């Protein structure tokens, strides 16, 4: 199964040349928006890096589709669980890579005076945003990709990605502008730690349900 993941990374390494200029443009975009809030900047970076990488990871569906790779992979000594899980692992590995890119870009953002502290960039908040966004995005997109394929759904996926990229910093901004008294007892009366637990639980449930759905779709697929 891990060799299937590596197979997708052979594709992805060829696409990485495009991602670097994409992030540089993103940095310039942040500069243009004059984002000074740490939370806003972080959210924007996390989401952009992760979604960008995930979009590329989902490109691997497109490569597979072009040559009907599923017809070949079914002949290999692998279970259907392993075949489906390999795609989830590709997305997970890609989003870890996105997280690493975010750390680098986060420090670059600090160096270019977007924010005054580096602590926020490598922080539990960043990690939980990463885990949540990765799970939700992949959980929604992967079953659709298994069912309809990349070519038919790529526009919807890109639109979904753009929505997330824009909505996440807006939410961060809203959160940031809440009066101090509203946050005194935690956001909505729930402590930060509990929020992390809730986010991780939602992410894990979404990933599990999504995997089961993808497996079901794959098992019923006629190749």
């Amino acid at each position, binding site marked *: 199964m891990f060799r299937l993941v*590596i197979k997708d990374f052979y594709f992805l390494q060829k696409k990485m040349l495009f991602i670097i200029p994409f992030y540089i443009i993103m940095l310039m975009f942040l500069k243009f928006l004059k984002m000074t809030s740490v939370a806003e900047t972080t959210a924007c970076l996390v989401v952009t890096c992760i979604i960008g990488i995930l979009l590329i990871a989902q490109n691997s569906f497109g490569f597979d589709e072009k040559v009907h790779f599923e017809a070949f992979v079914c*002949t290999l*000594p*692998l279970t259907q669980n392993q075949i489906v899980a390999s795609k989830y692992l590709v997305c997970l590995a890609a989003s870890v890579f996105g997280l690493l890119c975010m750390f680098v870009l986060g420090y670059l953002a600090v160096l270019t005076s977007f924010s005054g502290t580096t602590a926020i960039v490598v922080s539990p908040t960043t990690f939980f945003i990463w885990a949540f966004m990765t799970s939700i995005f992949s959980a929604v997109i992967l079953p659709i990709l298994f069912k309809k394929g990349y070519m038919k759904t790529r526009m919807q996926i890109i639109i979904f990605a753009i929505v997330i990229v824009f909505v996440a910093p807006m939410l961060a901004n809203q959160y940031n502008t809440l009066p101090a008294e509203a946050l005194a007892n935690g956001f909505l009366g729930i402590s930060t730690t509990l929020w992390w637990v809730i986010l991780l639980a939602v992410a894990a449930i979404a990933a599990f349900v999504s995997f089961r759905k993808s497996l079901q779709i794959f098992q019923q697929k006629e190749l």
Partner: protein
Amino acid sequence: MDTITNPIIRVTQLTKAYPEFSLGPISFDLPSNSFMALLGPNGSGKTSIIKILARVRQRDSGGIAIFGKDYDLKHPQIKQEIGVFLDEHHFPDELMIHELRWILSGIYKNWQPDLFLSYMYKFVLPVYRKLNTFTPDMKLKLGLAVALSHQSRILLVDEPTDGYSPGIRDEIMTELQEFAQKEGNSVLFATHNPANLGKLTDRVAIINDGQFLITVETKQIQEDYVLVKFSPTLFDKLKPLMIGYAKTKHGFEGITQQPEEVKRIAASNTVVMTPATLSDLMRFFVKGVQ
């Protein structure tokens, strides 16, 4: 169902329904050390059988046992022993052969890198070039090399040489023959063209409309079936003895399993009898009366 002791593949009452076509129920055995052909026109169901056995498609009902064990989706290890060579290649186009080789070597536990490389030399396939620059001939040969490089004991083949030059066909068929001659190996080969089979097959199942019409040992064909050419005056008398017949320019021709009876009825009338070929069998079994 024809029964063979300890078949390498045993298919029992296999069915698969499509909106416009139904396969089966079909039962057959593939013995060890054999080369069996599924012969039938396009759309007859032979590709479905190969793809169900290759796990590319799911069956609706029926049993499949390989090496005496149920062919279960949860136990894919049995596929280590099965090589699949389909009519079109499905390898990732963006990869190079050396990358594909590395991926497959981690999936097939009996992967033989030296054997695979020897095929690359033999077929003159460049290891460091993307597959999307390969010609269809090169991709076909790569497909065969992959199917033969993991110590499989069963080879499932689906119309691989259709549309290729006779030179390529001969090259492929030679490799298949070498594989089939190794102790314990078996080949199941689907084709619509009897000429593709040459003299390789031990057994042939003729299939049409999702059903097996006949399964026959190849060496028995010429002994058991006779092509008869006869004049229209004999038509009424010989018609009941014919499995299938067709009108020709000079009279009728058909195949029969009762040549002595044909001779007796024809008496002093002229009938021309020749041993039937695989093509004759397919023509008359599939098309019947024309």
